[in-house]
């Protein structure tokens, strides 16, 4: 059964010392994990922190992962524990500061803003969302159906093949081509000005 072969191949590489392979796992699951953690904490910045901690814990515990369960299931449990612990220990005393009676302006940092919420990050989210949506609308129908069934409904290629009455190979091809079409537009967003120097050459 090749279920989870993808994750396992990466996990095994990490266990043998290949850190780059862990990046791939993080990239794949980061959104899912943040979404999961947000069931426990409302604040997205905090959720990201917890997700980050969960990933790092998972990395360190990876030598003990045997493949009895799917990697994501194992990761999921770590994330839930981390989130629960964070919520429990979250009671921090507020930052003290002196309020000068004569002060004209004062403020106090109680919220947090994670660096992923750099302005570029926030702006990027909207750009990405609208770019992806526009790209999907522009897809030929068979490609659009395939990618939506995969990403939104979570169907396997076989299930999609049955739903679309076509071979599995065609499903694979359609999903790939849909992603490539969307990705072409997405790359423009990332390479567009973010205040970075690359574009200036």
């Amino acid at each position, binding site marked *: 059964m090749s*279920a989870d072969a993808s994750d396992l191949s990466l996990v095994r590489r990490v266990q043998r010392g290949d850190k780059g392979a862990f990046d791939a796992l993080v990239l*794949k699951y980061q959104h899912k994990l943040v979404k999961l953690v947000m069931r426990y904490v409302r604040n997205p910045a905090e959720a990201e922190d917890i997700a980050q901690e969960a990933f790092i814990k998972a*990395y360190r515990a990876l030598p003990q992962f045997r493949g009895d369960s799917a990697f994501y299931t194992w990761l999921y449990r770590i994330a839930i524990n981390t989130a629960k612990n964070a919520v429990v220990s979250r009671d921090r005393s507020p930052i003290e500061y002196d309020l000068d009676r004569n002060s004209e302006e004062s403020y106090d940092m109680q919220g947090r803003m*994670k*660096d992923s919420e750099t302005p570029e990050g926030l702006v990027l989210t909207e750009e990405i969302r609208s770019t992806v949506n526009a790209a999907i609308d522009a897809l030929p129908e068979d490609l659009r159906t395939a990618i939506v069934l995969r990403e*939104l409904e979570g169907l396997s290629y076989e299930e999609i093949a049955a739903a679309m009455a076509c071979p599995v190979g065609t499903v694979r091809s359609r999903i790939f081509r849909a992603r490539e079409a969307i990705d072409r537009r997405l790359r423009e967003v990332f390479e567009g000005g973010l205040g970075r120097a690359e574009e200036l050459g």
Partner: protein
Amino acid sequence: MNEELDSQLSAMFDDELAPEECELLARRLSRDEQLKARWGRYAVIGAAIRSERGVLNAALAGRVSAVILAEPALAAAQGARRAPARWWQPLAGAAVAVGVAVGSVLWLRAQAPFTAAPPSAQLTATVSVPAAALLPAAAAGAADSYVVPRAPAVRAMVPSTELANYVVAHSVFSSPVGRRNLLSAFMASESGTAAEEPPVEPEGNVR
């Protein structure tokens, strides 16, 4: 290029690729920044389609990557000694990664037109990283695999008194922001708290 091969990444992302092919692709994926970037974008596409809340970039992945890079490789945890003995020298990939930051996303940069090099190479030799900076905050169970760094190299972070003089004399001529950075760094010392990524909370403890 052949679509069969090209579509492998997409298939592997969906866990629809044969195990043998996964093994091969996994190897390429871990080393190839472009491929990794594409993989990351596949994840973003999925999240966007599902209208998931949260920020749609990979800053998180970048942060995790930076932390992981500073840790000993897992093989080391099982006994094999590795590079840690040379932390005090700026090593590409290891030492420098702690300077890798956050807003700049690990895999986004792979798309920058003139940059093909992996992130670590770009930072080589530009920052002298003090030995203490490379200690991860709480190495659960792996503490015994660390080697205490030897005396810091010439590139000491703590300025000598002579350098202190220059810093102070120069500070008068810096821009206000530059001056604050300079003097703050000067005030700080090796006893600062380890923080792999720039924190927002003022507390010294990060993790």
